[in-house]
C-alpha cells in the first residue's frame, strides 16, 4: 500500500448532517479495493469525493501521484460507474464510447490512442455499435460502459454498486468479467458495495466504512478473522461474539472465562479485561459426544460439551446452534450434519482452535454499534466458500 494508485490523507467532509471523518486510504497501482459498509455509511459520498463532486474541507487526495484535491471531476481522470452503468440513453453504443474518446481529445491528449472501432472490437461489442442502451443486456451494458470509461484513459476506476439491480447469476458473471478486465487494464479501482460477496470475490483489500469513518482496512481473511471492532465483526457476519472475562495468561495462551467455561485463545494482549470473543461459525467444529473424557484444552483446541438447540439448513450449508453454557453457532456442510445426525437435544462436543478466537476489548462504542446492526449479514456469503 504505497499509495501510487490513490492516496487519501486525512480527508474530512461535511454534507448537511452527514460527515466523513478523517479518511485515509492508499491503493497500489492495479489494486482493487472494495469499500464495504451498510446503507448510509458514507460509501457513495466517499466515492464522489474521490471523483471530485464533493470537496473535502481538509485533507489531500492524490491520484496516480497527482494532487487532485482542488480539481473538478473533469480533470481528475477517473472512470465512474453506477448502478445500471449510466449509459447515455440518447446515444448509440458507438456514440457512448465516442463520448469518452472525444472528452479525452478535448483534454489535450494529442495521441488520441485507439479509435472507436478498435475499442468496440476489444470489448466484443462492434456488432452493437448502432444500438441504443435500452436494447442491451446487462452484460453488454457493462462492456459499453467499460469501453467508454477506458476511452478516456482513467487513472482510477470507481464503481458504485454497479450490480445491485441485477439477479444473482448475472451478477456473478459480470463480476468475473469485471475482475478480468481490471486485472488486464492494470488500473486501480475502488468498488463500493454492501455485499460481502463482492469483497470476497473482487478485492485485493477491503475497507470497512461505518458512520463516515473507515473502521478497518485489510485483506478479506484478515478482516473476517481479526475484525478491528465489534461493528466490523458483526457486519462481516461474525456469528459468535460472546462476552468474556480475561483471567490471565498460561503458556502463551490467554485464559478467558465465558459463562461457566474457560477458553484458551492466542493473539495479542487485549487492552482490558472485559472482552468480546469473536469466533466465526465456520471455524467451529462439532463431533458427537462419545469419548467424554477429553474436554477442555486438548493441544491447540478448546473442546466444550454442549447440547444442540437448533439445526437448520441455509441452503448450501447448515447452521447449528449449540448451548455450551453460552449459545455457539457452527456452520457445517449439509452432508456433515446428516452424518452426525445433529438434531435438537443431542449432546455434542464443540471444537474451537485457540487461533480461531479473536479477542476484542469491550467498549461502549462497540457495544452500541453492535446493537444497531443486524447480525449475521454474512451468512449467505459463507456459502460461497
Amino acid at each position, binding site marked *: 500500500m504505497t499509495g501510487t494508485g490513490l492516496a487519501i490523507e486525512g480527508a474530512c467532509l461535511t454534507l448537511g448532517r452527514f460527515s466523513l471523518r478523517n479518511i485515509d486510504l492508499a491503493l497500489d497501482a492495479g489494486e482493487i479495493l472494495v469499500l464495504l459498509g451498510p446503507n448510509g455509511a458514507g460509501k457513495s459520498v466517499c466515492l464522489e469525493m474521490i471523483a471530485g463532486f464533493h470537496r473535502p474541507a481538509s485533507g489531500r487526495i492524490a491520484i496516480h501521484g497527482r494532487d487532485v484535491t482542488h480539481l473538478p471531476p*473533469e480533470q481528475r481522470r477517473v472512470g465512474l460507474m*453506477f448502478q445500471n452503468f449510466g449509459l447515455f440513453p440518447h446515444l448509440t453504443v458507438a456514440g457512448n464510447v465516442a463520448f469518452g474518446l472525444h472528452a*479525452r481529445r*478535448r483534454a489535450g491528449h494529442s495521441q488520441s490512442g485507439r479509435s472507436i472501432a478498435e475499442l468496440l472490437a476489444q470489448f466484443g461489442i462492434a456488432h452493437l455499435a448502432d444500438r441504443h442502451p435500452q436494447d442491451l443486456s446487462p452484460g453488454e451494458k457493462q462492456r459499453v460502459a467499460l469501453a467508454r470509461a477506458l476511452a478516456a484513459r482513467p487513472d482510477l476506476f470507481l464503481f458504485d454498486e454497479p450490480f445491485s439491480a441485477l439477479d444473482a447469476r448475472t451478477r456473478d458473471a459480470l463480476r468475473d468479467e469485471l475482475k478480468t478486465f481490471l486485472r488486464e487494464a492494470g488500473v486501480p479501482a475502488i468498488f463500493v458495495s454492501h455485499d460481502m460477496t463482492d469483497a470476497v470475490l473482487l478485492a485485493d483489500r477491503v475497507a470497512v466504512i461505518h458512520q463516515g469513518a473507515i473502521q478497518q482496512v485489510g485483506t478479506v481473511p484478515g478482516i473476517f478473522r481479526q475484525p478491528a471492532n465489534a461493528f466490523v465483526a458483526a457486519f462481516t457476519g461474525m456469528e459468535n461474539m460472546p462476552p468474556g472475562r480475561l483471567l490471565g495468561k498460561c503458556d502463551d495462551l490467554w485464559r478467558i472465562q465465558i459463562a461457566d467455561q474457560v477458553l484458551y485463545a492466542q493473539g495479542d494482549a487485549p487492552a482490558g479485561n472485559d472482552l468480546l470473543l469473536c469466533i466465526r461459525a465456520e471455524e467451529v467444529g462439532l463431533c458427537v459426544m462419545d469419548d467424554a473424557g477429553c474436554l477442555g484444552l486438548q493441544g491447540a483446541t478448546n473442546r466444550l460439551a454442549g447440547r444442540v438447540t437448533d439445526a437448520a439448513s441455509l441452503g448450501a450449508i447448515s447452521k447449528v446452534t449449540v448451548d455450551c453454557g453460552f449459545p455457539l453457532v457452527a456452520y457445517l456442510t449439509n452432508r456433515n450434519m446428516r452424518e452426525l445426525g445433529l438434531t435438537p437435544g443431542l449432546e455434542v462436543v464443540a471444537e474451537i482452535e485457540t487461533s480461531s478466537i479473536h479477542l476484542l476489548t469491550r467498549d461502549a462504542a462497540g457495544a452500541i454499534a453492535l446493537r444497531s446492526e443486524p447480525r449475521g449479514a454474512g451468512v449467505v456469503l459463507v456459502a460461497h466458500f
Partner: protein
Amino acid sequence: MTPVPARPTGLVLVFWLVGSLLLAFIVVPLIGLATTQSGGNLARVAAMPDVRLAIWLSLLAAFLTACWAALLGIPLAYVLARSEFRGKEIVSAIVDLPLAVPHTVAGIALLIVFGRQGLIGGPADRIFGLQFWGTLAGVVAGMLFVSAPYTVNAAQIGFEAIDPRLEKVARTLGMGPWRVLLRVTLPLAWRSIVTGLTLTYARAISEFAAVAILAYYPMTAPVKIYELFLQFGLDESSGMALLLLIVSLALFIMFRHIARRRRVFVGAGR
C-alpha cells in the same frame, strides 16, 4: 413475448363513456363554428389585410413569447429540478401564480408596472426607448406572463426525469458542466422542453384579456375578433375565429409531432 392487451373492464368502459362527454364538449362547439361558415365567407375574411395582419402578429408575438420563455424559463426549471434550497416551495408557487390570476387582473397589474410611468416601463422607456403600452413588446409581455408557467413546469419535469448520475458520469469523462448541459442534459430533456414551449406558444396565441388591456393596439387576432364581433356581429367575427382556429390547430399539431419524435439530437458527442 408481446404483451396481450388486457380486456377492458367495466370500470374502463364506464370511464370511457364519461370521458367522451368531455371530448364532445370540446369538439362540438368547434365543429359548430366550422359549419356556420361557407368557404366563400372564409376566403373573403382571409383576404382582409387587417385580419391577416392580426393573425400574423399573433403568430409572431407568440413565437417571441416562446423564445423568452425558453431563455428565462429553462434555467429556472433546471434550478428547481436540480437544487434544494430554502423557499423552493414558494418559488414553485410563484411560477404557477399566473395560472391562478384572472387574466384581466394580470393585464391591469402589467399595465401598472409596464406603463410609461411604471416601475419597469418608466426606466425601459428612458434608457432603451422601449415602450410597452400599445406595442409588440407589450403584447409579448402580456403573453409571457400568462404562458411562461407551462414551459417552466414541463422543463422541470423533464430535468427531474434525468438521472443526475448520468451528468456525473459525463463529468468524469472529461466534460465541464456547461458541455454536460449541452451534450447530455438538454438532449435528454428535449421532448419535455418542446412540449412546454408548445403549450406556451398555444397559450400565448389564445391570450385575450391581458394583451387587450396592456396592448389593445397593435391588434392580435383574438383582439381583432373581439372588435369584429362588437362592430359587425357574429358573422364577420366567426369567420376570422375559424381562420385563427385552423392556423392554431395546424401549428399545435406540428409542434406536438416534433415533440414526439425520438432522439432529436442523435449523434451528440461525436
